C-alpha cells in the first residue's frame, strides 16, 4: 500500500508541476528542428512531464503535424530514458506505448501510412504480454483501425474495432466506445454504404452515450455527407447547418469552413448550381487563406462541376487552370495535376461533363490515402459514363 500511495502522491505532484507553464514555455521557444535536443532537459525527465508532452502532441497535431511528429519522437526518447521508481514497470511499458502511438498518429497525419502502422506495431508489441494493459491495447488498436481504414483495409479495421469496442464496454469507457462506433460508420461510408453509415451515426446521436461537442459536430457533418450522397437533401442540409453552428460555437474555424464546403457541395448536387457557385467561392478563398491548397482545389472542382452544369465552359476552364497552377506551386501530387490537366483539356474542347469533374475530384481525394493510384481516364467516355463491358 505504501508503494501505491508514494507513486500516487509523486505523480500528482509531477502532473501539477508539468501543467505549471515551464514545459509550455520551453516548447514554445524551441523550434521543431531543435526539439530532439530537449531529451536532456531536466524539466522533461519526470513521468508527469512525459504525460504532459502527450497533451502538447495533441494540440500540435491539428495545426502542424511535422511538429507533432517531432514531439512524438521526443516522447519516445524520453520514455526510453525514464527512471522506473516509484512507478511500476508496467506504467513504463504503458507510457512508451503511448509515445509510439503518438508517432503512429503523426505519421498518419503526414500521409505516411506504412510508417504509421510500423509505429503502432511497436506500441502493440510492448502492451500485448500484459493483461493489465488490455485497455491501453484497445486504445492503440482504435488508432491502428483508423490507419487501416485510410489504406482501405476495411475488414481488418472492422475486426480491430469490434475487439476494441468489447474492451471499452468492459472498462466502461464510453468516450472511446463512441469513437470506435463513429469509426465503424466511417468504414461503411468510405465503402459507399451510405445508408448503413448514416444509421450508425444517427444511432450514435440518439444513444444515451455522453458525446463530446466536437464529436457531435463531426457526426452531424458525416450524416450530412451521407444524406447528400443518398439524395436526401433536406436531411443533409439540416445536419450540415447543425454541424456548422456547433463548430462555430466551438471556434473551430477550419471545421466551419469544411462544413460550409460540404453544404456548397449539397447545393450543386441538388441542382442549385448558381447558388452553389456563389456560396462556394468565398469558402475556396478561405481554404487558400489557410494554405489548405488541396481543400481549396477540391472546393474549386465543385465549382467547376456547377459551371459545367450551367454550360459555363469558359469559367470552368479558367478555374481549372487556376487550380492546376495552385497545385503546381504547392508541389502537390503530380498525378493530381495530370488528372486536372486532363479535365482542363476536356473542358477546352467542350467535351467535359459534370461526371468527369466529379471523377477527377474523387480521384484527387483518393490520392490522400493511395498517393500512387493511377488516374484512368480511358475508362471514361467524355460523357462521363463507364463503357459497357
Amino acid at each position, binding site marked *: 500500500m505504501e508503494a501505491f500511495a508514494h507513486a500516487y502522491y509523486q505523480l500528482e505532484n509531477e502532473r501539477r508541476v508539468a501543467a505549471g507553464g515551464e514545459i509550455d514555455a520551453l516548447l514554445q521557444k524551441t523550434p521543431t528542428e531543435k526539439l530532439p535536443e530537449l531529451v536532456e532537459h531536466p524539466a522533461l525527465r519526470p513521468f508527469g512531464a512525459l504525460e504532459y508532452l502527450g497533451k502538447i502532441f495533441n494540440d500540435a497535431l491539428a495545426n502542424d503535424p511535422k511538429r507533432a511528429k517531432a514531439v512524438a519522437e521526443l516522447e519516445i526518447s524520453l520514455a526510453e530514458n525514464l527512471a522506473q521508481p516509484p512507478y511500476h514497470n508496467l506504467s513504463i511499458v*504503458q507510457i512508451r506505448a503511448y509515445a509510439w502511438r503518438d508517432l503512429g498518429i503523426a505519421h498518419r497525419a503526414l500521409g505516411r501510412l506504412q510508417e504509421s502502422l510500423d509505429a503502432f506495431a511497436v506500441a502493440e508489441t510492448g502492451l500485448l504480454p500484459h493483461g493489465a494493459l488490455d485497455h491501453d491495447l484497445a486504445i492503440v488498436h482504435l488508432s491502428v483501425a483508423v490507419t487501416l481504414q485510410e489504406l482501405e483495409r476495411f475488414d481488418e479495421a472492422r475486426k480491430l474495432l469490434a475487439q476494441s469496442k468489447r*474492451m471499452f464496454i468492459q472498462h466502461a469507457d464510453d468516450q472511446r466506445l463512441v469513437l470506435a462506433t463513429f469509426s465503424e460508420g466511417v468504414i461503411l461510408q468510405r465503402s459507399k454504404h451510405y445508408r448503413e453509415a448514416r444509421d450508425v451515426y444517427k444511432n450514435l446521436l440518439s444513444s444515451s452515450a455522453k458525446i463530446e461537442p466536437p464529436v457531435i459536430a463531426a457526426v452531424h457533418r458525416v450524416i450530412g455527407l451521407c444524406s447528400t450522397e443518398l439524395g436526401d437533401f433536406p436531411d443533409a442540409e439540416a445536419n450540415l447547418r447543425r454541424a456548422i453552428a456547433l463548430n462555430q460555437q466551438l471556434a473551430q474555424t477550419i471545421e466551419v469552413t469544411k462544413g460550409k464546403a460540404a453544404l456548397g457541395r449539397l447545393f450543386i448536387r441538388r441542382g442549385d448550381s448558381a447558388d452553389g457557385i456563389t456560396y462556394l467561392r468565398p469558402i475556396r478563398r478561405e481554404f487558400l487563406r489557410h494554405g489548405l491548397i488541396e481543400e481549396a482545389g477540391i472546393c474549386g472542382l465543385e465549382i467547376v462541376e456547377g459551371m459545367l452544369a450551367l454550360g459555363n465552359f469558359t469559367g470552368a476552364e479558367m478555374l481549372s487552370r487556376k487550380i492546376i497552377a495552385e497545385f503546381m506551386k504547392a508541389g502537390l501530387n503530380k498525378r493530381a495535376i495530370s488528372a486536372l490537366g486532363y479535365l482542363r483539356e476536356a473542358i477546352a474542347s467542350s467535351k467535359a461533363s459534370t461526371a468527369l469533374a466529379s471523377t477527377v475530384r474523387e480521384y484527387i481525394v483518393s490520392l490522400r490515402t493511395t498517393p500512387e493510384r493511377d488516374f484512368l481516364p480511358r475508362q471514361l467516355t467524355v460523357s462521363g459514363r463507364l463503357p459497357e463491358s
Partner: protein
Amino acid sequence: MRSKNNTTSVDHAAALYNQYIAELSTIGTSEFQMTPAEAGQLAHEVLMVSITSLPRIQDMRAWLTASMRSAAAKAQRDRAKV
C-alpha cells in the same frame, strides 16, 4: 514533513487502495483459481497501473475490475502454456 494537502493526497491514495485491493484479489481467487498470494500480487499490479491510467479512466471500479479480469485471464493462459 508533509503539508496538510500532501497528507490528504496520501490519505486519499491509501483509502483508494484499501477500498479495492480485497475486491480485486477475490476476483483472482474466485474466478481464476489463483492462490491468495498470486491474486494479491496481481491486484497490486493493477492498482499500480491505475495511477498512470487515471487520465483515461472514466469509472474507476469498472476499470479496475475489468483490468483485473484481463490480467488474471492472461496469467491463467500463461500458466496453461507451461
